[in-house]
């Protein structure tokens, strides 16, 4: 009996995309807009993450909304290898971002058994002023490892990197 490692249920994610602004044909209008712009900016930034119930329940008809994912459901069992294929803008990255907890879904749930680490992001936490050794520990813990886990894997990591003699030099 195989166990579920990842199960994704009815996952949806909506983004607000930019809509072309109306241009102003008089100086007076432009000045008025300029004065009002802090308020407009505030509304715009707020609208990036606030969606009304009506916007979310209508399927179509909101030209500034982009449903990157809509009602996605699938499961991955322990030991399974799954690839996701799609054209540009199909929602592959959005899906992976939700699974790795970088961004929350608008609707739906993901249940994960185990630890998620995305290979895409190797080196994210590298800092040029830190030594190789310090960077190994920093990045290991960023990936959710505890210090003692990094200790255990340390030699393996150094062997893999093949730069043992530079371990105590800042990586820059």
């Amino acid at each position: 009996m195989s166990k579920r490692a990842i199960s994704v249920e009815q996952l949806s994610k909506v983004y607000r995309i930019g809509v072309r602004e109306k241009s102003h044909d008089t100086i007076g209008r432009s000045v008025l807009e300029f004065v009002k712009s802090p308020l407009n900016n505030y509304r715009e930034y707020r609208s990036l993450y606030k969606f009304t119930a009506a916007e979310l329940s209508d399927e179509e008809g909101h030209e500034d909304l982009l449903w990157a994912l809509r009602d996605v459901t699938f499961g991955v069992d322990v030991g399974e290898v799954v690839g996701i294929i799609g054209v540009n803008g199909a929602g592959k990255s959005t899906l992976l971002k939700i699974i790795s907890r970088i961004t929350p879904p608008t609707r739906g749930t993901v249940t994960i058994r185990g630890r998620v680490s995305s290979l895409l992001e190797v080196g994210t936490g590298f800092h040029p002023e830190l030594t190789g050794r310090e960077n190994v520990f920093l990045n290991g813990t960023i990936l959710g490892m505890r210090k003692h886990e990094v200790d255990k894997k340390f030699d393996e990591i150094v062997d893999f990197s093949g730069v043992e003699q530079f371990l105590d030099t800042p990586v820059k």
Partner: protein
Amino acid sequence: MIVIITARRWEFFDFAELKHYRDLFYFLVWRDIKVLYAQTVLGFAWAILNPAVQIVVFSVIFGRVAAIETDGIPYLLFSTVAIIPWTYMSDAMTASSQSLVQGKQMLGKIYFPRVLFPLTPILAKLVDFSISLVILVAVMMYHKVELTWNLLLLPFLLVAMVLVPTGLGMWLAALAIRYRDIKFAMAYLIKLLIYSAPILYSASAIPTEFRFWYSLNPIVAVIEGFRSCLLGTPIEWLYIVPGLVTSVLLFLSGAIYFRRMERVFVDVI
């Protein structure tokens, strides 16, 4: 380990998760400390130089030129006991407020408890604070200050001194990631805040009818507390207690606000 990701709007901090990430917190703080003075000649001497220059400038301008009334305390001593904790609070608050914007590379690529971003500089700046205590001790020895039992208050004041920038830092970091205005406002905020508390002048200059409102400022509590604790002047509880209450409220509200907002950080970078 089972993780469930939902669209739920808000939940309080997951303490088990924070505990799991404590090693990361340690390395982030270590990185901040190490990187701050990297490639400088003076290194950690900057932690002494920065407040020392301020103390000298203020002592000349406010102590000599303006000759501000300090209840009989020598101005150098009067300002040093205030500027040392103030420098920590303002540095920690500024760094904390910019922490998310500076860390946005990481924010958009990998998950770990977001609150580690604003908390890291709060701890890292304590190193500078500890080093700058050298100035405090030197000035106190120069003026032959005798220690009193008031010193027992110090641990509580240190906690308050850390709580203030933590609370404000969480508020400001969560705001700054969405509104970059915060970065520009911070420069003014710090300049104004130094006058909001009895750092350069004495609290006794405040008219009695405004005392209560004045004392709600948690910075007032920390500064007044430091002064009576280190110099042995009578403890003005009316100045200290209200501010301590606000600092706790600031911390709790900051934590709640940050937690509420952290879900949208990535979508608004």
